[in-house]
């Protein structure tokens, strides 16, 4: 009975769970090949911090690809805005609490500018964002021309990319363990279980279809164990980093917007069939602006995370970020045909992508082979996606 249910649920949701299975397999392989170094607290913590700036881009790129567009400009936009942030902090002496919102707003504006030729004039986004790619690359070189690399000395700013959330003072129990992280993990598990139970109860009240009880419990146990494991691993090092906090907030917010709100549904409708969406009273133009605006803002955030992590703005910051983000989104199950893809998928895709880099670095694999492997994984992920899509009806 139990296995029959499990088989059925897995079969029906192979696409959604495929990503997690892939991540799990990759992690196991690297853990074996690196004698466990890969799964160490320190490495996982590093891995997640490195994923941060790609992950936020991948989240924004998900929406862009869902509405059948692409944004190539975001890599150098992130680099450029990171440099602007550095200049504002170091040369203009602006406080960090002013610089961050300013950079985010600038990013959103830049996104709207990229969207203009596409949304207003119907020019392919590949072209308009390629123009942005060139322009921001030039702009980045321009603002760093006099100084070269700009070292950032603001501690608060640098903490975003390097700092960890504070812990309560050592009171003797669980030494060496980040207790606040552990506590947050526990709270997250409790909230998750509570939320699932409530929504199940409500669905049953309405007489709607729900998972069979054994599968429901399995899901609760699985997710709880997963979250528990991750928090345990993280709390064994420095705890939750600010980068991870920021990324989790972004992913949660965008997941909520895309799955629960009217705007989110309209975005997926446009991706599914722009003509039908327009005739259903949805303004394709306005939402195209909105999606590119959000992409620009997330590019700004990515630039902040990266500059903060390096504690400096460099002349090459942002190089190929856009490609990493696009690859992450495709690995995460976003369809190039539009209308299909989840931000959580892209987030996992980004982690998979970074895991490959991290694992192969630990194995001392030559960078040339690393690119080949990443390309192979990308194409394998997309083939898997296409193969399961035609079945998953």
């Amino acid at each position, binding site marked *: 009975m139990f296995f029959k249910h499990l088989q059925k649920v897995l079969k029906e949701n192979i696409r959604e769970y495929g990503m997690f299975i892939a991540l799990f397999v990759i992690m196991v392989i690297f853990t074996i090949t690196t004698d466990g170094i890969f799964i160490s607290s320190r490495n996982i913590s590093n891995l997640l911090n490195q994923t941060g700036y790609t992950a936020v881009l991948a989240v924004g790129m998900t929406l862009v690809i869902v509405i059948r567009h692409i944004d190539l400009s975001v890599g150098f936009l992130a680099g450029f805005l990171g440099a602007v942030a550095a200049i504002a902090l170091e040369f203009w002496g602006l406080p960090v609490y002013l610089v961050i919102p300013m950079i985010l707003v600038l990013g959103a504006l830049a996104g709207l500018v990229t969207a203009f030729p596409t949304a207003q004039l119907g020019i392919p986004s590949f072209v308009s964002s390629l123009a942005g790619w060139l322009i921001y690359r030039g702009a980045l070189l321009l603002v760093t021309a006099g100084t070269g690399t700009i070292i950032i000395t603001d501690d608060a700013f640098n903490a975003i990319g390097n700092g960890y959330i504070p812990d309560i003072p050592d009171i003797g129990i669980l030494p060496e363990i980040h207790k606040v992280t552990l506590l947050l993990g526990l709270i997250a598990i409790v909230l998750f279980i509570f939320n699932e139970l409530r929504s199940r109860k*409500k*669905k049953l009240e*309405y007489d*709607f*279809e729900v998972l069979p009880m054994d599968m429901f419990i399995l899901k609760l146990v699985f997710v709880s164990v997963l979250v528990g494991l991750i928090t345990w691993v993280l709390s064994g090092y420095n705890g939750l980093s600010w980068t991870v906090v920021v990324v989790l907030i972004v992913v949660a917010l965008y997941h909520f917007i895309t799955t*629960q*709100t*009217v*705007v989110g*549904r*309209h975005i*997926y*409708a446009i991706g*599914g*069939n722009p*003509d*039908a*969406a*327009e*005739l*259903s*009273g*949805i*303004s394709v133009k306005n939402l195209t602006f909105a999606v590119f605006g959000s992409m620009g803002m997330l590019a700004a955030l990515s630039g902040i995370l990266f500059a903060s992590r390096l504690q400096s703005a460099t002349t090459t910051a942002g190089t190929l970020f856009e490609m990493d983000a696009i690859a992450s989104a495709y690995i995460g199950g976003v369809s190039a045909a539009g*209308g*299909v893809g989840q931000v959580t998928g892209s987030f996992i895709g980004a982690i998979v992508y970074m895991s490959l880099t991290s694992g192969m670095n630990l194995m001392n694999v030559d960078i040339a082979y690393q690119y080949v492997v990443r390309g192979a994984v990308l194409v394998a992920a997309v083939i898997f996606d296409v193969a399961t899509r035609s079945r998953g*009806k």
Partner: protein
Amino acid sequence: MNTPILEMKNITKEFPGVKALDNVSFRVTEGEIHCLVGENGAGKSTLMKVLSGVHSHGTYTGDILLNGQLQEYKGISDSEDAGIAIIYQELALIPEMSVYENIFLGHEISSNGFTVEWNETIKRANEMLKRVRLDVNPSTKIKDLGVGKQQLVEIAKALHRDVKILILDEPTAALNEDDSENLLNLLREQREQGVTCILISHKLKEVIEIADTVTVLRDGQTVCTLNAAEGEISEPVLIKHMVGREIDNIYPSREHYIAEHVALEVKDWNVYDPQLGRELLKDINFNVKKGEIVGLAGLMGAGRTELALSIFGNPDGYHTHGDVFLDGARVSFGHPADAIKAGVAYLTEDRKGNGLILIQDVKQNITLANLREISKRGVVDNNTEIKTANQYRTSLDIRTPSIEQKVQNLSGGNQQKVCLGKWLFVKPNVLILDEPTRGIDVGAKYEIYTIMNRLVKEGMSIIMISSELPEILGMSDRVYVVSGGKIAGEMPIGEATQEKIMDLATDY
């Protein structure tokens, strides 16, 4: 003169669920202009697709004989090699290429099989242009020519390949009177030169003017073949043969619920398409009352869909001029969203193209146009959504295993019901239905008609665009006939007959 150059014998072609051609026989004499007439969906285009190899040998039953020899075309290139050229209503020219490039596209002149001899090409193109009496520079790009001239380029393209049979599918549908006259003259000249011509046309006057022989198709069957020389061709005769079927009993009985109150009125409405560069609609006046079903009859391409779109927020960016009144108040919709908000809904004729989001499920499609209704502060209430969708699933009897089924997996009739559900959920006062029963089976048709009756009983006004005359007659309270972008006539249902409507619809 009497040898048949082409004979199609007992052609039967079935599509899933529909018999498009049922034992059709068709005989064309060498050197004549043979017209093929019939209502939309009578099977004319399908027959020509069988002839040209679009429907390849083996997908139909029956024989094609060319000069007495059995033909088995596997594709268009086979029929082209045999000397058959077909020119579709949608021109197959490449707008960004020049006239001469288009004429020789796919048959480029080359002596070594690798490089194109452009000088020779231009010279030959000039000869062809002279033959079709088109006085343009062959280097002109196609996009810079009017539709009439483009049509001539298509013919030149066909003729240079030494065609024996030239097929034209509604060549004059998009042309003005002068261009049409030119084209007909050209066909007469080609006849002199021995080209046999098959012409599909809805314009009966034109058919009478030019045809040597006319074959009438109806519901996928040959009705009769008429001969001009024996004086058998006249408009009433043609119309009688085209529509001469009994209206079967597939319409639910109707009561009339019409109130005096005018729900929607359109006055002196003119629509110009800046992309095509021509006027689509001219001086349109019509209205629909509360509780009334108004039928907009006419042939495909008459401008009815454009009329609906131009009123419904004008998403294609036409230039419009004139007034629309909703419940007596003048309105102007800048976007479909405005129209929906004001209580006007438009169910598109192409449900897969611009009606449904095929990759989404039944529930998401039904709620799409009115998500605000089931959301609080921008957040969709999933439970209310499921309830809403189930409600429409029950009331419209949408047959689906679950409301979470993707609509691409539903049958045509059920897809149409999902479309209908979507528009009923916006709770409109005026519902425009564009070909509401196209491509769905008889049972589903009946159900949709029943739903329409229920809606007008509840006080809704329905504008029904339909190319099927029986449907117009079976469902409308009042009929407008649209022809060539104009309202050609209006009549209460009591006075409407198939003949009358067809007469107005074909009168350009």
